[in-house]
């Protein structure tokens, strides 16, 4: 649609000159936004661009310092999430707002449970839950299941159902598809398009360009807390959009691959022979040579994460064998995996729970995995620690106000760098990465890709699981596609394309329709 038409209709929700400061940091500055009914409005921007603050203000989680917001011409500055929800603004948060010990039905109806004689009517609540789940295309979830017993992708669907159940006029989705399987994404997209034709206003935040290309009518780009541009979808090329987001030229985000001469007769650094674990991993065989980056692809939850955990000694009762440098090894637990001769490192998926101790300092977090390398007789050698940390800060260009600030105060991208640096301090030979770029901005991603290549060149063997097809295509020498706990396809070199990845991820022959840009 043309620009003039966008401005002609009167918006359902309008944000005018909204600013928000956290201490000295301006998270949002003089932001303007107009959201219209019956449209999907994409919000783009790097991490720290102000998207999360924008959403939190709309949802009543934080109060703005300046500016005003209007819903239907009425003042709409909410003082609590409950207030925003009552006014018809529902959020699907990236960090889930579900309560783990309550059932799916309890969660869906939590904001305003149906009551009879003042007490919660479980039967009515269940009907509401069933309807909402059906509306979200998640009929497979039983309303009585406890949320904590559901896998991440199902929880995300419950979260969407919960937002729908509140009968919103404006639905905000913050990275709502990041944990979904490809099948669910298709369902959710259909649901969102349906909601659009019902006249809801949708605000869609995502890092995935192809999703935005498929869904959005209007796009707004944020950078450094300001909205830099609004335009109708499809009127800018991907690289133009990315340029707006990062404010600089976007080229060659992936470093070139070095063609390595494979030394004949040399055992691969890491090799698996028919690895199995309960019914979740079956007959997994592959090898990773020195300097190689091997990707793990496929839909979410097909065993990729478990495979990394299996290699790192977290799972018990595995079958098959793991060989390092051609010799069979039995890795009993993560503590053994990280020590010589294995020298493994696992960069976990959830940096907040498995990667970092958020309230502890940057220094402490960096040293955790390498304490034995910087200490003698149980006493930490401060000089040696300092030297190693310094090296890492430079290598990864971690931006921090100092080594003694809590790591939780850093931005998401820098936190992830700390997780990686922490493991690099051990100079690992085998590096396992579990979707390390989830929720990280483009600039940091680019630095990580370069780092991966650099590590490979110095002889590390890298196993890299990613949910982002572009990454697998751009970074990996080979990609193993998993489906239902098995390797269904191995792609090498030029074979690695989005089409081939999607086709084998869905375990169908190539020819499957790719997403339209």
């Amino acid at each position, binding site marked *: 649609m043309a620009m003039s038409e966008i401005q002609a209709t009167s918006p359902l929700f309008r944000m005018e000159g909204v600013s928000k400061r956290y201490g000295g940091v301006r998270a949002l500055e003089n932001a303007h936004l107009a959201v219209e009914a019956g449209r999907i409005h994409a919000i783009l921007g790097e991490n720290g661009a102000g998207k999360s603050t924008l959403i939190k203000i709309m949802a009543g989680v934080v109060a703005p310092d300046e500016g005003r917001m209007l819903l239907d011409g009425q003042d709409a500055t909410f003082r*609590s999430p*409950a207030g925003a*929800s009552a006014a018809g603004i529902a959020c699907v948060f990236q960090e889930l707002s579900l*309560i783990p010990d309550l*059932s799916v039905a309890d969660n869906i109806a*939590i904001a305003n449970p149906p009551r009879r004689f003042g007490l919660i009517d479980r039967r009515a609540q269940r009907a509401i839950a069933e309807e909402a789940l059906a509306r979200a295309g998640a009929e497979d979830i039983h309303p009585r299941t406890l949320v904590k017993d559901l896998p991440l992708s199902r929880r995300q669907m419950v979260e969407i159902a*919960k937002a729908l159940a509140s009968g919103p006029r404006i639905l905000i989705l913050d990275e709502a598809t990041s944990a979904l399987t490809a099948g669910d994404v298709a369902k959710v997209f259909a649901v969102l398009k349906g909601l659009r034709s019902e006249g809801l206003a949708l605000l869609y935040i995502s890092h995935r360009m192809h999703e935005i290309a498929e869904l959005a009518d209007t796009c707004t780009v944020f950078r450094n807390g300001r909205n830099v541009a609004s335009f109708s979808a499809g009127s800018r090329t991907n690289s133009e959009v990315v340029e707006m987001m990062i404010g600089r030229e976007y080229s060659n985000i992936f470093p070139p691959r070095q063609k390595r001469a494979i030394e004949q007769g040399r055992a691969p650094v890491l090799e698996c022979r028919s690895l199995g674990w309960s019914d979740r991993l079956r007959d997994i065989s592959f090898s990773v040579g020195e300097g190689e980056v091997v990707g793990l692809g496929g839909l979410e939850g097909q065993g990729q994460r478990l495979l990394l955990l299996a290699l790192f000694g977290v799972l018990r009762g595995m079958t098959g064998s793991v060989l390092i440098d051609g010799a069979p090894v039995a890795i009993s637990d993560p503590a053994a995996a990280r020590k010589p001769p294995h020298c493994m490192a696992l960069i976990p998926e959830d940096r907040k729970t498995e990667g970092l101790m958020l309230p502890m300092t940057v220094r402490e977090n960096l040293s955790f995995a390498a304490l034995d390398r910087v200490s003698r007789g149980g006493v930490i050698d401060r000089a040696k620690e300092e030297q190693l940390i310094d090296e890492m800060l430079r290598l990864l260009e971690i931006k921090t106000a100092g080594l003694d600030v809590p790591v939780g105060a850093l931005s998401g991208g820098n936190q992830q760098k700390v997780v990686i640096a922490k493991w690099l301090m051990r100079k690992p030979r085998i590096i396992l990465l579990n979707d390390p770029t989830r929720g990280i901005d483009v600039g940091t991603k680019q630095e990580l890709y370069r780092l991966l290549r650099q590590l490979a060149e110095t002889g590390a063997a890298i196993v890299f699981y990613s949910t982002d097809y572009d990454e697998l295509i751009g970074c990996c020498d080979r990609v193993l596609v998993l489906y239902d706990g098995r390797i269904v396809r191995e792609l090498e070199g030029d074979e690695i394309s989005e089409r081939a990845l999607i086709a084998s991820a869905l375990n169908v022959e190539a020819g499957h329709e790719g997403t339209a840009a």
Partner: protein
Amino acid sequence: MSEWRYWLNEQRGTLTGLAIFLVMFSVYVANHPAGFTANVVHTAANKGVLLAFVAMAQALVVITAGIDLSVGMILVLTNCLASWIVVGAAVPTTLGVVAVLATGTICGAINGALVIYGRLQPIVATIATGAVYFGLGLLLRPFPGGSVNEDLADALTGRLFGVIPSSLVALAAVVLIIWLPFRKSVAGRAAFAAGSSEPAAFMSGVPIRRGKFAAYLLSGLLAGMGGLFLTFFTYTGEAAYASGSAYTLWSIAAVVLGGVSLYGGRGSAVGAIFGAFAARTTGDMLFAFDVDPLWQPLLQGIVLMIAVSIGSLALLRVRNRLDWFQ
């Protein structure tokens, strides 16, 4: 999964508590010289009911992911108060009972206010208030003494139809009148939600403060009921520090036995009751086996340790070790 399996999953903690109690009680009765008679059951019920009240009080707070170290002292304070005012004819006795229960409720409200509005850590706040409540109890009853309306006491501690301990009937009534409505109320849901994940509850617009405050308030009321029953059993009031502390500590053991998660968000007061009776039986069992009193604390500790371990048996089956930490 069929519906009853969901029910089973929801009630697992409570059922585990029931199972532990049944096993222990069976062993106890089987070795009791008198066997399974109305007398034996009556005595066991009256012994267990006090801890059951305190354990329910504890469970409400533990569900919100807190802990209440003052429940035993509320019991002591209300006991001392009841020994002064629950006396005389029907009307003054009734007023006395109401005043005693109101006192318990106010104690709970103070705890709740400090934790929720004062943002103090529950463990520290309730150590302090517990000391205050005990201090008040001591001022009321520097020496053991006082009396209680004996007709009421006998009615509530005797037997209905010659077989059913009336204290158990009272306990069941409390579950029906307080616990079940609480669990089905919005405030109750909020208490569970806040205990399970306070940030998620906040983001969902749940009335967290109301829910937690209601939990503390009712906790005080239940502990006050415990104090009232203590008076009915003993006919006196006594500010016994050791006894108050013991009730507090055993109430924590009881909620764990009853399947209430100390991490919050999960469990039921009914489970806590089973846990309380199971905990009480650990002591009685040793009587039935005629153990030297000198050995009793030691053995009671071991039995308790075994009982608590049953709940963690599931951890041995874990194959993905990250599940240990969830």
